[in-house]
């Protein structure tokens, strides 16, 4: 059975797949294969990092056959072993269903979800066992470090500078410039820091990289240490990311064993070591000066950055801080050179960006595309469009610091500058797709509520401004809004933006300002008509049945949890508004779209 040589079964054990029971699938494979004497060459089992298409997990890949199975359950394992492993047949029902072409696809690589993608930061994820440094090295890992140690520090910095790489964590500051400035300060010790405190709701690319390919982050950091003359680095990782912590910890140990970390790395005379610091659950610690305060053992309050951290950062020493995805880009840049990197993307925005495509979109998951890919390509080609083919309303990018982009801007290229120009932000790359059942006033309120808890509370404008904006938005969503509130919101938002101390405060009003700009109609509808057309704000929603559309199928009344719908078979149904709890179930279940949303019930 020579054909079984080098065959591997990769079971994805990223957080998304784990939640769908993938570990038990993995165990079942292990068990099934160990008891089967017929298979002479046993397939190798690997638990891999995230494959991206989390929603369709657990994902099982069979190599080199290039077969990908989705939504694999423990019960499917026997069939896969019988058919695919022993007889080289595919189990068609587990193949990926491509919503765009309406066909089942054998290899995930042919799926439209993966087709438009180009993987640099995610290059190894799903392909290697994150706990095995040998796996990483087999795919070229630590070659960049070897190459870098033969280069002059100055040349490494030049390489990064020329590549045009910009920080993937938010504002897009040029990485090379940061390194150069820091290298020019002679004060010692210097530090290298990795921001792994990913906190933007809706973004999980850093988590995936740390879980699926921790060595690339470490390699990037060592190279930077050598380039700027630092000997110590810290990885600040969210404590909730247990798997990421575990895998990074193991990778550090392995790297130390192989001589990539510690004293006299690869006989170069260069010393460098890394330490993990666990974040305590504070969104504000994603802000660099707050993160450093937290590493020092303080409360995570940002400071004014008139003196930048490249000069006085951690413990007031020169510090380079980059986020996880940025670090993951360093080794490929060193190996392939700046020209290669610069050939990808658009003017001023080179390389790729990882997005987490989530919300009301058919294919959700992690996506890495060249910078400049349009929003439309992302949502429709890769994402497969909106769930249930409902109308697209908006996309939220950049988390609480970003904004909501309306459909007029669907053809915007996704890069730092274009997003900023329309009032949003790249942020860490969360892309949350919203349809007509999403209320934009509620979205603004949601973010203010998030920030009310997550602001550090240090400065007046951020703390009191967010508190007041939340108060106003809550009023509007509850039907207590007045027209003058719109002006007041704007006035406060602008002051918070201009007068706050740190990046969190300065960008906090973006969700309010962008919804006010692009969805002002919805605000007016909430305030003047006391109506929430999306059916989200319960006080401003009532349901009624369109008698011209209702066919009397009784589905709505059967599904109503409180028995508020009456009507006989084949007759028009009626909703009793007094009993209705506005859960919206009837509207979802109705096959004819006969359940309509009205405004606030006017008291007689």
């Amino acid at each position, binding site marked *: 059975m020579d054909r079984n040589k080098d065959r591997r079964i990769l079971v994805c054990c990223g957080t998304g797949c784990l939640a769908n029971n993938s570990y038990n699938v993995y165990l079942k494979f292990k068990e099934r294969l160990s008891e089967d004497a017929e298979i002479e060459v046993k397939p190798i089992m690997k638990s891999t990092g995230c494959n991206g298409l989390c929603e369709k997990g657990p994902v099982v890949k069979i190599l080199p056959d290039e077969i990908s199975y989705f939504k694999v359950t423990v019960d499917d394992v026997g069939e896969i072993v019988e058919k695919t492993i022993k007889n080289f047949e595919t189990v068609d029902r587990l193949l990926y269903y491509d919503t765009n072409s309406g066909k089942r696809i054998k290899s995930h690589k042919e799926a439209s979800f993966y087709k438009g993608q180009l993987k640099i930061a995610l290059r190894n994820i799903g392909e290697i066992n994150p706990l095995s440094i040998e796996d990483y090295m087999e795919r070229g890992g630590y070659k960049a470090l070897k190459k870098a140690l033969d280069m002059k520090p100055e040349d490494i910095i030049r390489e990064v500078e020329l590549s045009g790489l910009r920080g993937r964590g938010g504002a897009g500051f040029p990485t090379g410039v940061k390194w150069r400035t820091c290298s020019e300060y002679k004060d010692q010790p210097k530090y290298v820091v990795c921001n792994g405190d990913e906190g933007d709701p809706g973004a999980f690319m850093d988590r995936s990289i740390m879980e699926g390919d921790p060595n690339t982050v470490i390699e990037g950091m060592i190279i930077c240490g050598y380039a700027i003359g630092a000997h110590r680095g810290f990885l600040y990782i969210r404590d909730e990311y247990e798997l990421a912590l575990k895998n990074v910890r193991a990778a550090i140990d392995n790297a130390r064993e192989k001589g990539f970390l510690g004293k006299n790395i690869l006989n170069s005379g260069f010393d460098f070591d890394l330490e993990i610091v666990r974040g305590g659950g504070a969104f504000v610690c994603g802000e660099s000066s707050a993160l450093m305060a937290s590493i020092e053992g303080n409360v995570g309050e940002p400071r*004014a950055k008139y003196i930048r951290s490249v000069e006085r950062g951690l413990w007031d020493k020169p510090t380079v801080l980059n986020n996880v995805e940025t670090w993951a880009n360093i080794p490929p840049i060193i190996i392939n050179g700046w020209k290669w990197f610069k050939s990808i993307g658009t003017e001023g925005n080179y390389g790729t960006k990882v997005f987490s495509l989530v919300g009301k979109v058919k294919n959700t998951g992690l996506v890495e595309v060249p910078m400049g890919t349009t929003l439309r390509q992302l949502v429709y080609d890769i994402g497969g469009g909106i769930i249930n083919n409902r109308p697209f309303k908006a996309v939220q990018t950049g988390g609480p610091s970003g904004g909501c982009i309306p459909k007029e801007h669907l053809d915007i290229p996704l890069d730092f500058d274009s997003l900023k120009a329309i009032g949003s932000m790249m942020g860490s790359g969360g892309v949350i797709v919203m349809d007509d059942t999403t209320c934009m006033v509620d979205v603004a309120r949601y973010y203010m509520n998030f920030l009310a808890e997550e*602001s550090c509370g240090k*400065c*007046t404008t951020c703390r*009191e401004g967010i508190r007041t904006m939340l108060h106003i938005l809550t009023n509007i969503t509850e039907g207590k809004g007045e027209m003058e509130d719109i002006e007041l919101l704007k006035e*406060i938002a602008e002051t918070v933006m201009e007068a706050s101390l740190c990046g969190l405060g300065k960008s906090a009003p973006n969700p309010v300002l962008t919804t006010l700009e692009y969805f002002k109609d919805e605000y007016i509808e909430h305030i003047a008509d006391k109506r929430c057309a999306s059916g989200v704000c319960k006080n401003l929603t009532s349901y009624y049945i369109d008698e011209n559309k209702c066919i009397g199928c009784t589905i709505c009344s059967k599904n109503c949890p409180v028995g508020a719908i009456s009507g006989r078979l084949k007759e028009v149904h009626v909703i009793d508004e007094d009993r209705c709890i506005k859960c919206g179930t009837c509207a979802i279940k109705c096959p004819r779209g006969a359940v309509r949303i009205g405004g606030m019930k006017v008291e007689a």
Partner: protein
Amino acid sequence: MKLKIDGIICEGREGETLMEVAKRHGIHIPSLCYRKGFEGLARCRLCLVEVKEGSRRRIVSSCVYPIKENIEVTVTTDEIQRMRKNIIMLLLLKAPNNSYINKLAEEYKVAAPERYMNPLDDENCILCGLCVKACEKMGTNAISFVNRGIYKKVSTPYDDASKDCIGCGACAEVCPTNAILVEDNEGKRKIWNREFNMVKCSLCGSYFATEEAYKLMQEKLNDNEEPICNECRKKIAADKLKESFANIY
């Protein structure tokens, strides 16, 4: 180094903040969280000014901004005035019945939207952080910021009487809005949920410090004399001065 504030040429040293230089030259920059001798806290945001560094204009908090050679500073522009008004409005919503904030609002002609004001709200603290800083400077560290975001407040651990507190009242003294309650009554002081016994001045007989604060003062000054209150100390010093002058002439 030289810099210009509102057209006035000022002289400053490397490492000094803009606020320090302005104060020394008698130029007023509004602030609630700045106090001479304390490092800038950058919390209240009222001290924002416009700075022109070369051709670049930016808005900075003067209490933490380290001065640079040849910068030109404008303390109040229309834009900044508008920000200050909005900040005061936000403070008024936070502490609607505080007399100092109301005075400030009057001065800046600011009214807060009544729909968003709670007339029964008795909050006085605006979280400027001066009290925490003062307590730290005393070496006592009895109070600190607690919680975060809109729930942030200043308190002792668990809101209990703190064993570290010496009842010196430095916190209350530096508070711009008079938000810290100090009750002195018949030789007792109540502050931060703790009651202290007070020490009498051996000269005038008035209660002037808690026993704990007095003890600390003695240790610091290496002083074992009879307790004397500040007023009497001043009087003694003035008398001595008068005497020495009398001897000269």
